[in-house]
């Protein structure tokens, strides 16, 4: 493959050309209720050529890996039709590397029968709990080998792995239907999905517990987020605004997002890293052949950095960060987060609780969304807090805030820390990417709660 890619890159008249070929193999096992619904494997082979000429981009994707040279000239001529300015890409030293996936326990060495047996045991565990109406259990693993070469002389062969299990439980009491979920994911160890019976039982019990929960009152409240939810908060409330593709061509937003601006208290630190071992948002090189790393976004409350592709870093005159990621060979990369986290602070959870007279303790998440300025995310589990004590359970708690004020409203950051064991999937521009979110508990003085 190396020869074919390097040969195809030899003659062109573009400012930049890259070729990315990918082979993927994945397995999925899905149960609905007590029954196994689907077992399947998928094999994919495909590739793309992307070219930049005078600031314009051309992109060609295909399944048949033939005539790469012709695909290069097609991408180049498309780019030429678009470009009438200057291609500004940040300089990245060329790299030659081979990155092999190193699995602690390799899912590809575990038989389908064994995987199924393990999932069977989780299904049984869920159904031991009374009042369960239905459940979904999904196991998946994936392997991707990528061949990447570009016109700066970089050539990388990179393998990536992923294994995960997700559990959704629905409890019902007459017309009242509640749900709960749990998940576990790793980039390098099948072991992460083994021995999860206690976690699965807990998820089933939570769904049943939520049958007694009441909807919240609407309005502004003091809230405590647990580490899983606070990680999603970091992702939605700040991470997306740090993606430089939202900022680099919007002069007014650039003025607001100027490095050095204060976003929160001195105790607030937010990072995005591709280097945390085992997390599904980690990798050695991004989909533009740029080495990954760890980027501080907020340090001591101040904006100190953002997430870049070759182009956004070039145009903003900032250092590359390795955040260009593509869902697959069929689409061009976008600026994406990797593993985003609020770093631990000093406040124990008990001290946070003691601060709250009338508020909400929010745990775990269903989802989150942002419009840059405003964001919202939904909690899986929530409890009212009264006079510093946890009170009745609440259901359907969605929180919402404004990026420019809510971070300032973080009044304490916990002295604990955890990555979300489920890993996350982030959607942007029609593409999904595995990401990680992590945080300690955080206390927010004012957060908008949607109520009934």
């Amino acid at each position, binding site marked *: 493959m190396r020869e074919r890619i390097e040969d195809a890159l030899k003659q062109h008249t573009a400012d930049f050309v890259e070729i990315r070929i990918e082979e993927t193999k994945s397995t999925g096992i899905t149960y609905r209720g007590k029954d196994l619904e689907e077992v399947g494997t998928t094999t994919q082979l495909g590739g793309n050529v992307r070219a930049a000429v005078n600031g314009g981009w051309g992109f060609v994707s295909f399944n048949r890996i033939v005539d790469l040279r012709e695909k290069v000239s097609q991408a180049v001529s498309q780019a030429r039709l678009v470009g009438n300015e200057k291609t500004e890409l940040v300089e990245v030293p060329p790299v030659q590397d081979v990155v092999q996936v190193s699995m602690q326990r390799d899912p590809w060495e575990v038989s389908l029968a064994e995987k199924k047996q393990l999932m069977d045991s989780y299904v049984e565990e869920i159904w031991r709990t009374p009042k369960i109406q239905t459940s979904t259990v999904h196991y998946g693993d994936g392997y991707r080998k990528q061949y990447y070469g570009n016109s700066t002389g970089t050539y990388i062969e990179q393998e990536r792995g992923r294994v995960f299990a997700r559990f959704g439980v629905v409890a019902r009491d007459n017309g009242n239907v509640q749900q709960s979920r749990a998940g576990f994911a790793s980039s390098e160890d099948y072991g992460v999905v083994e021995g999860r019976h206690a976690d699965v039982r807990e998820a089933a019990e939570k769904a049943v517990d939520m049958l007694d929960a009441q909807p919240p009152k609407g309005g502004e409240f003091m809230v405590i987020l647990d580490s899983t939810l606070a990680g999603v908060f970091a992702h939605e409330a700040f991470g997306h605004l740090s993606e430089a593709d939202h900022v680099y061509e919007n002069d007014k937003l650039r003025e607001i997002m100027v490095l050095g601006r204060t976003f929160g208290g001195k105790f607030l630190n937010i990072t995005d890293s591709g280097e945390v071992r085992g997390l599904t948002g980690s990798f050695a090189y991004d989909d533009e052949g740029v080495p990954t790393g760890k980027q501080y976004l907020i340090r001591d409350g101040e904006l100190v950095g953002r997430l870049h592709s070759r182009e956004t870093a070039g145009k903003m005159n900032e250092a590359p960060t390795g955040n260009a990621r593509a869902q697959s060979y069929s689409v061009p990369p976008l600026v994406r987060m990797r593993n985003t986290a609020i770093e631990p602070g000093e406040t124990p959870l008990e001290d946070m609780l003691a601060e709250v007279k009338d508020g909400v303790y929010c745990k775990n998440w269903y989802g989150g969304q942002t419009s840059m300025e405003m964001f919202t995310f939904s909690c899986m589990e929530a409890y009212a807090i009264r006079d510093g004590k946890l009170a009745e359970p609440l259901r*359907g708690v969605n929180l919402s805030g404004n990026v420019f004020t809510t971070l300032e409203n973080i009044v304490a950051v916990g002295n604990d820390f955890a990555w979300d064991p489920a890993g996350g999937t982030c959607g942007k521009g029609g593409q999904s990417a595995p990401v990680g979110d992590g945080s300690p508990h955080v206390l927010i003085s004012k957060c908008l709660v949607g109520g*009934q």
Partner: protein
Amino acid sequence: MVEELLEKAKQSAEVAEALYHESTELPISFEANRMKSINARESSGMALRIIKDGRIGLGYSTKLSEPGDLDALVESAVESAQFGAEAKFALPSTYTTNGVTIFDPAVEALTLDNLVALGTEALDLLRNHDEEFLCDVGASKRVSNVRLLNSHGGGTEYRKSVVSLGASINLTRGEDLLDVWHYAVSCRAELEPQAVAQRIIRRVEDARRQGTVRTKHMPVLFTPQGLGSALMLPLRQALSGKTVLEGASPLSDRLGEQVFDEKLSIYDDGTIDHAVGSSPTDDEGIPLQRTPLVENGYVRTFIYDLQTAGLAGAEPTGNGERSPNSLPAPGYHNVVVAPGSGGSLDDLIGDVDEGIVVEYAMGASMGNLFSGDFSGNVHLGYKIENGKLAGRVKDTMVAGNAYAALKNIAAIGSEPEWAGGSFYAPPILVADLSVSTREG
């Protein structure tokens, strides 16, 4: 290739079904007021479903050009059948190709220059309205071929053309960001940049001034897009035969009962010419139809694929939809909400003393869809005061229960429109919902 694969599969399975798709797509994009990229995407893939020893097996591959690739696909389907679910259905033996019009040669004939012209016109119209607009525009054409054949001779083949034009604008004033977008899509070469730009401009003008809202209950008017973002997802899930079969649908034992306001009727219709959700058959070869889901507030039909219908003892409804690498599951084609007698959007606004319009509720579909509870940030919405729009509402949440809301409909508009391609609905005025907002 489809016949060859079926031949190979029949050697190791009782029943086999091959689904081949290929498509070419030409998307172009403008970013920050200038042209940014031209993409050309080709894709093809083959899905194989088999029944072996009464069990379902499945495989999918895009690696099809080398000798042995088809054998590998058969092998993976056979392996998965060892563990697969017991098949509870018979595949159709009818080959259906006629019916709905979803191919327009004029779309296939669109050149790169035509697409650039579509995008440029939309961009110019927006920029001429307000040069502060920071615009992104995307135009695209796609032509796809689908061939479905099973070992009973049933299946379909069709060609579909899709053209789309989407635009969004950003206005940044200090820390106030306004993003407004509109997206139009059709199987026919009929997209009008003027119409797309006008929709965006009206929304921007309605949102330019800041409205004031307080935390309390009030009437909420959902535009078609707002309706899709906040109230439809719980219903889509509850009316799926799969949710019903599991007993997780709040509607599972309500078939034939009145659950919603009598003004509400909803259909799933895969027979609408030029609509992107239409095709001759579903992904299992069952001809598409117009299925009443809710009529005059009564729950009429749940939607099914073959296997789910078999398990539930229900009639298949032609709703077996699949992403290429998974088994068919109940899926909608074009969801249509019947118009009411409430008049135009402006007429509906005129009926409200104090309330809000919701154009898009961000995150409202993220919670517990089973219960119908929703709670979303009003990403784009306006205050209504004395029958008139009174500025943009932001930092505000709208929350409630979709079932309760759709039982308490004040009026349904008379003018439906497409929102996002496969949802066709009029605006709906819900009499009373909780609105929460930031204080000061």
